[in-house]
């Protein structure tokens, strides 16, 4: 019987999260936003930069390739925010309480949300990979050794940003507060990062601010994996991202378990 398998309950809740949370607007946002960046901003800035390209490790790639690789990490961040939105809507629309009086418990609800955020994060990255492939394929230089770095960055990135929005959604009381804080912080995450431009050569304070931002680590590791440019610094970034994601993940899990129906 499916009914008594705990794992099956989690699968049902993941399915429910995806069906209930993903609407047309979300999909449009997930696809249109990075496409505009890659195909409009990418080619417009390429004209300004000229043929010199961007240096990543020992490799020089076109700005569009640089940006597309950055957009993969960026879209992971965008996609993962849906984890917070699911919890926020469940709380606001009474579905959190309703799910708990059905044959599901809080632990299953928490695990299902974490799986959902990783799936949506990876799905968002895959969408950009597919859309941006024509712009990046001539610079791609993956190896068996470098691919796990990219996958790690995307999973850890999903966990970090998903957990981050979960913490916000469990702590905030009003929709206005939730929106203002999440939009403000995500504006910082998006533009004070190496997603759009390289951190090298920036004024020192700005460069330092880039490395306070986990999106910079996600994007750097993703690029290092895609272009097979793994360095000692990449490995340090891997450790920092792992620690940050674990810490935020634990706080998010604790916040969800403490949520009262």
């Amino acid at each position, binding site marked *: 019987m499916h009914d008594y398998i705990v794992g099956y309950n989690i699968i*049902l809740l993941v399915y429910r999260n995806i069906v209930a949370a993903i609407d047309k607007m979300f999909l449009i946002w997930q696809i249109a936003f990075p496409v505009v960046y890659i195909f409009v901003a990418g080619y417009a800035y390429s004209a300004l930069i000229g043929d010199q390209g961007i240096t990543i490790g020992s490799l020089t790639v076109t700005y569009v390739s640089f940006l597309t690789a950055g957009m993969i990490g960026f879209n992971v961040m965008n996609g993962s925010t849906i984890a917070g939105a699911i919890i926020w809507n469940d709380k606001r*629309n009474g579905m959190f*309480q*309703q799910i708990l*009086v059905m044959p599901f*418990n809080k632990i299953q609800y928490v695990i299902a949300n974490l799986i959902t955020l990783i799936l949506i994060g990876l799905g968002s990255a895959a969408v950009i990979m597919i859309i941006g492939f024509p712009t990046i394929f001539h610079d791609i230089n993956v190896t068996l050794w470098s691919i796990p770095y990219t996958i790690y960055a995307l999973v850890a990135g999903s966990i970090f940003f998903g957990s981050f929005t979960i913490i916000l959604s469990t702590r905030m009381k009003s929709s206005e507060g939730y929106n203002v804080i999440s939009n403000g912080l995500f504006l910082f995450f998006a533009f004070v990062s190496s997603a759009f431009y390289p951190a090298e050569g920036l004024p020192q304070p700005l460069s330092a601010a880039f490395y306070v931002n986990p999106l910079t680590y996600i994007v750097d590791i993703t690029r290092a994996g895609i272009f097979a440019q793994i360095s000692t610094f990449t490995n340090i970034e891997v450790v920092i991202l792992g620690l940050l994601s674990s810490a935020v993940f634990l706080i998010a899990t604790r916040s969800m378990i403490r949520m009262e*129906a």
Partner: protein
Amino acid sequence: MLNDRISNQAPPSIRDRNEPCISVTHLKKQYGKANAFILDGISFDVKYGTVFGFLGPNGAGKTTTLKILTTLLSPTSGSVYIFGKDIIRKQSEIKRKIGVVSQNPSFEANLTVERALDLYGLLWGLHDSGVRKNKVNEILSTFDLESIRNSKNDELSIGQRRRVQLAREFMHGEDMDLLFLDEPTVGLDPSARRMLLDYIKKHVMSGLTVFFTTHIMEEAEYLCDEIAIIDDGRIIAFDTPTGLKQKYGGANKIIEITFKEVLSESFIDLLKKIIISSENSDGDQRRRDDTTNTTSRIDINETNQNAVTITVNNAEEVISEILQLVSKNGMQIESISINPPSLEEVFLSIVNDENSSRDNERK
């Protein structure tokens, strides 16, 4: 008017079962050791195949009880058994057999009504998509939701959303044995309200047990087989609706008089005097019988200043005096009626008595 109450007729095999569907014993709930008990040792049983009304004023402990029975809260002490199973240890098994319609709205904002029902069916274990589709169509038709089947929940009116919330619980399939309804008719128009109550009755007849809270006494009277009244965390009355009226309504009668002219202050004062003197003359009888509620009072209708409602336990005597007064003052009566107390009157009387005795204890 919901005055044509029909006894629920669940199959004898269900109604005659010896063990209760819900058994609550000495249930206590306290939020933090320094705080007072929200539930102070309540006990009651709910029989299989019946509708159990759980009534009480705001803050009495209804929602806390409901949250414990639906596994959302843990009790501080006492025991709760549902289907003979301990609610703490067998939570998962119990939850598969219960449905809950809570007082607060709950909905999936992005989904259409049809999609939401289908998803709910899947979550309840209806894995076959064909079976689910038929069930969705049946529910859409029963709850008159066909015209909004493609509307998103976010676009619905409060009443429509409430109907979907109720309908959704019946996507449970054939396994639901117990349904908790927490003020389920809030926001529904009279025909939807009646349709819902009749639908519940139909299911009770086929064996469903219902735990029902409401502030609408007409509904409780229409639907419930037994009623418990809770106040300040304690059960203060428990009986059938008829039993409650007999036990707590006493000899009280409600006299409703509509005059042809607006009542003057001086005339109302004269009416009050009649009631007070009739109460005094009846005082010896009241002292002999504590259980008879004899709180006489006069209520002036706020919307129609020609009408008064008088509660007394010697209606015939009071009417005769009022008629004399009317004739003396040259007034005319449009209509007059004498009725037994409604469940609402009884409820108010029980709760007011409880509040008075609690105030006296404090003094």
